[in-house]
């Protein structure tokens, strides 16, 4: 078992920097999941840790040792590939035993460990088969078994479940969670399945175009995404991001207007987004409001708390919950005070921005209807123009 420490790790192919100044500190025994869109450098990062890819700059430590120039076999790691990469000409037993044989582990010990791993992964009856005679799920297990028997101090997984069907994926996910609980080995796990990330991870590291965006426990990532990229990447359906303009109010509060929103924040609310104390003008002018689909509340039209009106296009009742797809609208205001008056002076309802809402099935919403919405102030996120989140509710 070991801590894995990446400090200012860089990977460049020629002029292309595919991983940039990556800093990650994976604690001993931690399950860290690397997520990000395709091509963001997850595999490259993992392969650098494995020693399969040279590190262009920075230091990599496994345990107390700097391993930048240590061969893969001496890093005390085991890796599970997306393609499994089993040895096709060997039986399952030989596949599992190969690494141990190479390391000169005594035969009795090999036998014991292979049998143990086979039992743990349900492979006992397949030990004499070749990989070609196994199903995808079984091959996946062999790949895991091959890593497990080695008893390395770090496991590296590169999208190990992406070739499995949905049901098997759930099953193997549980198995991996169990494995981690049982062995307590440090795990670096790459995936772009966010359910895997959310359920398995102690911490999730979100990468985007080679740059680490945020590394935090799943709930933290979900509730307090560091920026708009993380906000939309994690969570399904994605968080609603609505650009607004902040207008300071005399009492220290602010009004957020735009994209069909008209949200009034009192001074206490505003203060939470500016924990360092308000700069001269209060909130920055250009902001983006972030609301998770379930953080809207449907209220009555006459409610003073109405923050937005939504024209419902489609509802998707899923039984336990209902997804509502529609657009936020600008209602006509009283003449002269119409906040939302279009440039042409029109005051008719105007569709502004797409919006997704998740609600209890009991809430009466139907296609074509118009609903009034309120955003729970405890759940309202604000992002600055550069995409980073302003501190916000619950933040120290």
């Amino acid at each position, binding site marked *: 078992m070991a801590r894995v420490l990446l400090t200012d790790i860089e990977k460049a192919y020629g002029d292309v920097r595919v991983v940039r100044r990556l800093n990650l500190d994976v604690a001993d025994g931690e399950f860290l999941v690397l997520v990000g869109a395709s091509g963001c450098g997850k595999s490259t990062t993992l392969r650098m840790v494995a020693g*399969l890819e040279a590190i262009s700059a920075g230091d990599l430590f496994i345990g107390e040792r700097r391993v930048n120039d240590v061969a893969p076999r001496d890093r005390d790691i085991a*890796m599970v*590939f997306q393609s499994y990469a089993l040895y*096709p000409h060997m039986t399952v037993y030989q596949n599992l035993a190969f690494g141990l044989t190479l390391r000169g582990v005594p035969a009795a010990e090999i036998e014991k460990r292979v049998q143990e791993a086979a039992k743990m992964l349900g492979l006992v009856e397949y030990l004499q088969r070749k990989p070609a005679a196994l199903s995808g799920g079984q091959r996946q297990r062999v790949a895991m078994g091959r890593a497990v028997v*080695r008893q390395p101090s770090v496991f590296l997984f590169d999208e190990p479940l992406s070739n499995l069907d949905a049901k098997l994926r759930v099953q193997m996910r549980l198995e991996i969670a169990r494995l981690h609980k049982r062995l307590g080995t440090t795990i670096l796990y790459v995936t772009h399945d966010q359910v895997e990330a959310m359920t398995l991870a102690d911490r999730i590291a979100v990468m985007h175009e080679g740059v680490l965006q945020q590394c935090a426990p799943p709930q933290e990532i979900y509730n307090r995404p560091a920026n708009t990229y993380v906000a939309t990447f994690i969570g399904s359906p994605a968080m609603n991001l609505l650009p607004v303009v902040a207008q300071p109010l005399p009492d220290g509060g602010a009004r957020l207007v735009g994209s069909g929103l008209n949200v009034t924040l009192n001074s206490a609310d505003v203060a939470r987004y500016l924990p360092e104390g308000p700069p001269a003008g209060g909130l920055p002018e250009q902001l983006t409001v972030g609301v998770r689909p379930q953080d809207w509340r449907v209220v009555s039209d006459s409610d003073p708390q109405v923050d937005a009106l939504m024209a419902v296009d489609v509802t998707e009742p899923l039984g336990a919950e209902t997804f509502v797809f529609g657009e936020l609208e600008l209602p006509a205001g009283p003449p002269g005070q119409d906040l939302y008056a279009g440039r042409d002076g029109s005051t008719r309802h105007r569709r502004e921005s797409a919006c997704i809402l998740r609600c209890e099935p009991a809430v009466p919403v139907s296609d074509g209807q118009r609903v009034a919405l309120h955003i729970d102030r405890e759940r309202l996120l604000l992002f600055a123009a550069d995409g980073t989140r302003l501190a916000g509710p619950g933040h120290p």
Partner: protein
Amino acid sequence: MSAQAPTSLAPTGLKAWLPHLLMVPVTILTLYPVLYVIKLALSGTAGVTSSAWPWPEQFSLDAFRTVIGHSDAQGGWLFGRQLFNSLVVSAATTVLGISLACAAAYGFARFEFPGRRVGLLAFLATQMFPGILTLIPLYVLIQKLGLLDSMLGLTLVYSTTTIPFCTWTLKGYFDTLPKEIEESALIDGATRLQIFLRIILPLSAPAIAVTALFSFMAAWNEFVLAYTFLSREAAYTLPVMIRNYVGEKDVQWSLFAASSLIASLPVMALFYALQKHLVGGLTAGGVKG
């Protein structure tokens, strides 16, 4: 409602017969020369009739007996000696050529090094010239080395001519082997050499079988170089021996035919033995997809 299910999906009537109508004559045409050689070989030492019918008019194994029993003035068994020469030279060529080609191909397939591209192209270039071109230089070389009339000389020459082709073929195959399998082994603790010996070679059995067969056959059938380098009858390989039955004055067709048949037996045996490996698909199941 129960419809009568068709018992077979095979086409019936003319459609079924048309391919046969075409294939049977073509097969006969292809086999005719072979049959004719068999006829000649079985016709005994009596001489050749001019009949085009490929069926022997008489069955006699005399020709085979003469060829196999061929000895020199001192009573040394020449045929045995020549068969031995052919076997040793071909086997040695195969072993030497394939071991070098495997190592070279793996290097070309997996490592970046200066001269890699040039090396590959140079190998390719040697394949563009007819082998005859190198006859004179090779003769001079072999003579200088004092390896005329020797199996070693012939083996060296044969190996060098087969290595480029074998290297290219094997490199092509190695390129298709998934890199992850090797990376897996690397992490598992294998050295490059162990990976080569314990992963790459077993996985490449089909490709190695094909190239080995190619090398063996090339050496086994080679005539021009052997005819040039070998002058003592005891040093002959089988193709040179066969050629000797077609002298300037008398042409012994039945002996020529019999010796040809005998010479082709080992190659056929080899084909048969290796046919299982000639079919690929050994990597199935290693990686997904």
